[in-house]
């Protein structure tokens, strides 16, 4: 009744970061509720993955051919069976492609409450409290739950994954696959790998973006190196694309692409409204510009007024390797 159940998400044979993030948070919650942290691992031949789930007290495994790859219907059936059998207090599901299918399905099927877009989970005076990032991050909603169980669907990256990567030997329990798996309306067919090609800047976690302040094409390789060191890619504002210094696929802004990276490092971009439109939703914006009145500083979280050619070499050096 006071256990915390984490849906262990795995993709193509690997547990995802979200799983560790939830396991770490789950353990913290279980300590407060006085229950156990239990991981639900659905799949086929997934037992080796349990080795990475040392943080959990127990891993409940359901194995079935229909669970070999994620299947919204099959996974919902199996997870429902696990929940019904364990009757946990809190169910943690990542707010990811898989979690989206599962959390709401479970809520509707079992008639239990659900909070999505969650970035914070706490137990205060015995009550579970969540904070959800709503309205594109513009407003947070603090909610509480009465009764058990309840489903918390957590945003990727909300908690550190480290806390979920703890050595240990969980109890492995195998549950019989529900009969309903024999009769599905949704069938997994195959994996489709993404196509190669030029970088898709909308998919990058880190973008180093350049504007007119970069002055000449010769300076681009230097910035590219910085982007590489940050594990990201190079993007640009319109003038750079117009000059054909970078391909159109790298353009951020109104006539280019809208991006939402975790880090947007804007170098020599003054911040025309047309550009701002394309990047204002980045999680962290750091802007470097020589003009203290550049509008980009209105939108950036951190700003640096100065010559970017003074800063760049030092920054690169400090990032090392």
């Amino acid at each position: 009744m006071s256990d915390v159940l984490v849906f262990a998400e795995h993709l193509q044979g690997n547990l995802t970061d979200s799983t560790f993030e939830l396991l770490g948070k789950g353990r913290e919650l279980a300590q407060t509720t006085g229950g156990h942290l239990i991981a639900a691992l659905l799949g086929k031949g997934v037992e080796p993955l349990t080795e990475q789930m040392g943080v959990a007290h127990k891993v409940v495994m359901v194995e079935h051919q229909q669970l070999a790859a994620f299947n919204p219907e099959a996974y919902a059936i199996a997870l429902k069976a696990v929940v019904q059998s364990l009757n946990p207090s809190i169910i943690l599901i990542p707010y990811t492609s898989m979690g989206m299918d599962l959390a709401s399905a479970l809520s509707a099927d079992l008639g239990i409450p659900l909070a999505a877009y969650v970035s914070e989970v706490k137990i205060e005076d015995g009550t579970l409290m969540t904070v959800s990032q709503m309205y594109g991050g513009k407003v947070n909603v603090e909610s509480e739950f009465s009764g058990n169980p309840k489903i918390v669907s957590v945003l990727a990256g909300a908690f550190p994954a480290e806390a979920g990567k703890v050595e240990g030997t969980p109890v492995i329990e195998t549950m019989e696959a529900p009969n309903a798996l024999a009769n599905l309306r949704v069938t997994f067919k195959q994996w489709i790998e993404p196509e190669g090609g030029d970088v898709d800047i909308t998919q990058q976690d880190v973008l180093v973006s350049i504007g007119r302040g970069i002055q000449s094409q010769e300076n681009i390789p230097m910035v590219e190196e910085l982007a590489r060191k940050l594990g990201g890619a190079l993007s640009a504002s319109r003038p750079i694309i117009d000059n054909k210094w970078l391909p159109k696929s790298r353009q951020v802004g109104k006539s280019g692409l809208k991006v939402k990276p975790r880090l947007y490092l804007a170098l020599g971009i003054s911040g025309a409204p047309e550009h701002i439109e394309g990047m204002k939703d980045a999680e962290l914006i750091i802007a470097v510009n020589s003009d203290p009145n550049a509008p980009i500083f209105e939108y950036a979280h951190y700003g640096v007024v100065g010559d970017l050619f003074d800063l760049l070499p030092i920054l690169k050096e400090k990032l090392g390797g």
Partner: protein
Amino acid sequence: MPVDPKQIRAKDKVVVDGIELTSDWNRMFDQRPVFDYDVEVLEKIAGIPGAESMAWCYQCAQCVPVCPVNEVGDYGPRKIYRRLQLGIDLIPDEELWKCTTCMHCLRVCPKDVNMIDIMPAVREEAVMEGHVPPELQEVFENTFEYGNPLGESPRKRADWAKDAGVPVPLMKEKKKADILWFVECYPSYHPRGKETSVALAKVLHALGVDFGILGVEEKCSCDSQRLAGERGLFEEFAEENIKTFSKYQFNTILVTDPHALNAFKKEYPKLGGRYHVVHYTTFLAPLIDRLEYRNTLNYRVTFHDPCYLGRHHGEYDAPRRILNRLPGVELVEMWRCRQNSFCCGGGGGGMWLDGFMADHVRERLSENRVREAVETGAQVLAVCCPYEISRFEDAVKSTGNEGKLMVKDIIELVVEAMGA
């Protein structure tokens, strides 16, 4: 059937009797094709109400040399006609989106082939059929949703007035004023536009003008959206604006934007909205000596005639009269001025087609114009259309003329001279 360029093939290198032939000598032609002029598309396009004059072209070619787009690329009404004759449909054709409706061709056209009517009519068909450049689609959607092409909050339309430092009364509170100032979108939202609005507010205040603005009640005049093919959008907001105007008593509508001037003068009357409308330069020119000037500007200034103030509405003198009265301003003309003025590229939807145009022209019209302005030796390029200030400021940067040329709205120069 259109001529297929693939029917003309060039070989890289042809050697005949040991002599290497180059250029035209090695052009190899396919067998002569059976060819048919599919004139149906010409008839279809000329059959669109408003586009009738497309069929009148007699290929005299006067339009091409004056066409600003041809100056930086390959375009012209004559060429459009010829393509239509060859069976190339204009509706899905990219050529359809190049025209800025600057009216230069119509000025010289002996047959009145009127691109100012043809373009919106054919584009409207294209929009209906779903052939809209994505950049433009977003602007249409923004306008429909928010009442302005920038996609800004309609509630913040009058936020600029907070920085004016002088009272900017709302018609909603005044109900009655001599002048209803229609601010328009770029002067309400664009950072540089807002600065010109503040400047105009200061001047109106200094002159003791009895004026009011509509604030959140104001909706885009949509003239450029209409010219870009969205007549429905234009009508939707025209009806709203006419309804709003009818709530208040005023004698004159003052506009900052020549495109709004065009809408109110030429299009609103068709929908029952008849007003006395003036551009702010026309309004200000006779009053310019009533202002007190504390500063001498010491600028050599050149002035760009906006297409929709000059060629479309014949106002060439008022902006010049204002500039000539400002202490320390020396006005120098670019060769292309007045009736012959160049185009900044912003009209007729061009404002929102920069990405599209980049694939079709050697340089932006604004860049071409900025080079001309720099050649006059002027320090200031004076403008009086909200599209121009941002377009030319961009162009000053992209042509590497930063520090050499400032772009200022005339009203900003007035305020600078006043020292207000």
